[in-house]
C-alpha cells in the first residue's frame, strides 16, 4: 500500500538529514504505529506519505504509484490525515458542514454526500452532534469529527499525526476507542504516529524511529520485550510492561508478553488456577 525506497529527507534550513535511507512497506489493511520521541523524524515520515513533503532522496510509492508533483493530488484522495491540534482543523460552522467540506471540494453529488456524511458520523459515534457548533465540542469529540471528515472521503489510508497528543487522558481514551471501532467497521490502513505506547499496543505492527533511522520494526509484543533498551529512545514502557517485569522477577513466567490490563489479568488468572 505504502512503500518507501531509500528515502532521506533534509529540511532546507538544516545540513543534517532528519530521515536517513528509510526502507519500509505498509500493507493494505495494516495498522502500523510509528513511534519515536520529539525530533526523531516520525512526523516528517508521515508528511512524506501524502506528499506534504517530497523526499530529498529516494522514492515513495502509494498503491504502486510513484509519488511526485503530478500524482500528488490523486494520491491525497487515497491518504487522509488527522492532525495534532483539534483546534486547527475546523472550517465549517456546524459539525455537518465541516464533514461535508472535503466532499464539496470533490464535487460529489448531494445525495451521495448525505449518505457518506451520515455513515461517517455514525462510525465515530457523533450522529447526535450533527448540528452542533464545533467550538462547543471537547477535544476528543473534535478529533472524532476530524476522523469523520476524512472517512467521508473514503481514503484507503488514514494517517493520525499525533492525533491524541494534545488531548487529556479521557479524550485520548475516547479517541483510541473510536479508532479501534473504525478499524472493525472499515477495511482501512491506519498509520498512527504517537509517543504513547498504550496507543501503539493496539497496532498490528510497530516501527520505532530513532535519530532518523528505523530502530525497531515488529509486533508490539516484541517491542515490549525489549523494554530495557526502549528507555534509550525516550519512550516509557507502559504500566502493564513494568508490572510484568516485576512479576517476572518474582518467578512468574508468561506465555507471551501481556499488552494491556485485560491481557495481563487473564494470564495471571490462568497461572493462578493451575496451582
Amino acid at each position, binding site marked *: 500500500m505504502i512503500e518507501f525506497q531509500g528515502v532521506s529527507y533534509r529540511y532546507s*534550513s538544516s545540513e543534517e538529514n532528519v530521515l536517513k535511507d528509510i526502507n519500509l512497506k505498509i500493507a493494505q489493511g495494516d495498522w502500523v504505529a510509528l513511534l519515536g*520521541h*520529539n*525530533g526523531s523524524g516520525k512526523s516528517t515520515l508521515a508528511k512524506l506519505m501524502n506528499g506534504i513533503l517530497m523526499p530529498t532522496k529516494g522514492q515513495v510509492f502509494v498503491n504502486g504509484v510513484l509519488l511526485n508533483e503530478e500524482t500528488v493530488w490523486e494520491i491525497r484522495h487515497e491518504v487522509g490525515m488527522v492532525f*495534532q491540534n483539534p483546534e486547527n482543523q475546523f472550517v465549517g460552522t456546524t459539525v455537518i458542514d465541516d464533514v461535508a467540506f472535503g466532499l464539496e471540494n470533490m464535487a460529489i453529488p448531494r445525495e451521495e454526500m448525505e449518505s457518506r456524511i451520515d455513515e461517517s458520523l455514525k462510525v465515530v459515534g457523533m450522529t447526535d452532534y450533527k448540528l452542533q457548533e464545533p467550538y462547543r465540542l*471537547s477535544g476528543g469529540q473534535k478529533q472524532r469529527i476530524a476522523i469523520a471528515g476524512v472517512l467521508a472521503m473514503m481514503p484507503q489510508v488514514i494517517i493520525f499525526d499525533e492525533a491524541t*497528543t*494534545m488531548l*487529556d*487522558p*479521557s479524550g485520548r481514551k475516547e479517541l483510541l476507542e473510536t479508532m479501534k471501532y473504525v478499524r472493525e467497521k472499515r477495511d482501512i490502513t491506519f498509520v498512527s504516529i504517537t*509517543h*504513547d505506547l498504550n496507543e501503539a499496543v493496539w497496532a498490528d505492527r510497530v516501527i520505532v524511529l530513532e535519530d532518523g533511522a528505523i530502530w525497531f520494526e515488529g509486533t508490539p509484543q516484541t517491542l515490549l520485550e525489549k523494554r530495557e533498551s526502549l528507555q534509550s529512545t*525516550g*519512550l*516509557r514502557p507502559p*504500566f*502493564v510492561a*513494568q*508490572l510484568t*517485569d*516485576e*512479576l517476572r*522477577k*518474582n*518467578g*512468574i513466567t508468561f506465555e507471551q508478553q501481556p499488552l494491556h*490490563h*485485560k491481557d495481563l*489479568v*487473564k494470564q*495471571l*488468572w490462568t*497461572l*493462578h488456577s493451575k*496451582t
Partner: protein
Amino acid sequence: MDITFKDVTYTYQPNTPFEHLALNQLNFQIPKGSFTAIVGHTGSGKSTLIQHLNGLLRPSEGTVSIGGFELTNEKNKQIKALRKKVGMVFQYPEHQLFEETVKKDILFGPKNFDVAVSDDQLLKVIDMVGLEPEILERSPFDLSGGQKRRVAIASILILEPELLVLDEPTAGLDPLGQKQMMELFSQLHRKQDITVVLVTHQMEDVLAYANQMLVLENGRVSLKGKPIQVFQYKDYLRQIGLDIPEVIEFLEYLEKETGLAIPYRGQALTELGTSIAKWVKDGDA
C-alpha cells in the same frame, strides 16, 4: 506563600444574559511550601481560579490572600509587586516567545520589573531548566518544542518567584520530556522551597508529585486531601469526568476479575509485583 480563598465568587459578564458563575463561594487554603494539584474537568473553574493567583482576575465577592497581599473586588495598587512573586506558566508557554534571542526573551520579564540580572543568574537559570549556555544567543524559533518550553520556563524562573503556578505544563511533550519537566518542578519545590500549584489532567503526576489535591466541580471544591486519599473516591471522580491513576485502575480491575484485593497505599511496583506473584503461586497474597 500561603494562599487563602475566603468565600470567593467569580461571575463572568454579570448582569447580562451571558452571566456565568465560575467560582461559587470557594474556600480553601494552600500552605506555603506545599505542592498542590488542582483537578477538575473542562469548565469546572480551574482556569478562573488560577487567574486569581496573580490578580489577572479580581474576585466578584470574597477575599484572596497570597502571602501578604489581599485581593478583593477593589483595585489593588500592589498588583505589580504580587506579579513579581508569582510565576505563571500557562499552557503552551512557548507560544509567548517573541524575541530575537533566547537571552533577550529571558531578560524581558526582569526589564519590565526593573530588575537587574547578572550573567551568573542567567547561566544559573539556564542550567536549572537543563539547557546549555550556548543556547542564549540562538533564536528561540530554531529550537525544538521541548527546548522552547524550557526557555519559556526559564524566563519565569529568572524573577525568582515564591509561588509557581503551572497550567498543564507537560501537554504535548513526549514521555521523556514530560518526566524531565515534572522532575524540574519537583526539584524547584524541594530545593528552592517554592510553593507550587499545578493544574493538570495527568493523574499519574498528581499521585507522584503533589502532597495536596483539590478537586473542583461547578466552581466549588468538592474533595480535598492527600492524592492517595482523594483517589479512593474512584466512582465519584469518574462520574465527574476525571481519570484515575492507572495503578489504582488496574488493582480495581484485578479484584473484579479474580477476587484478589490489594488496597493501594502508595506501594511501589516492586511491592505490588511481589504481592501479586505470591497470590499466583500460593493462592493468596
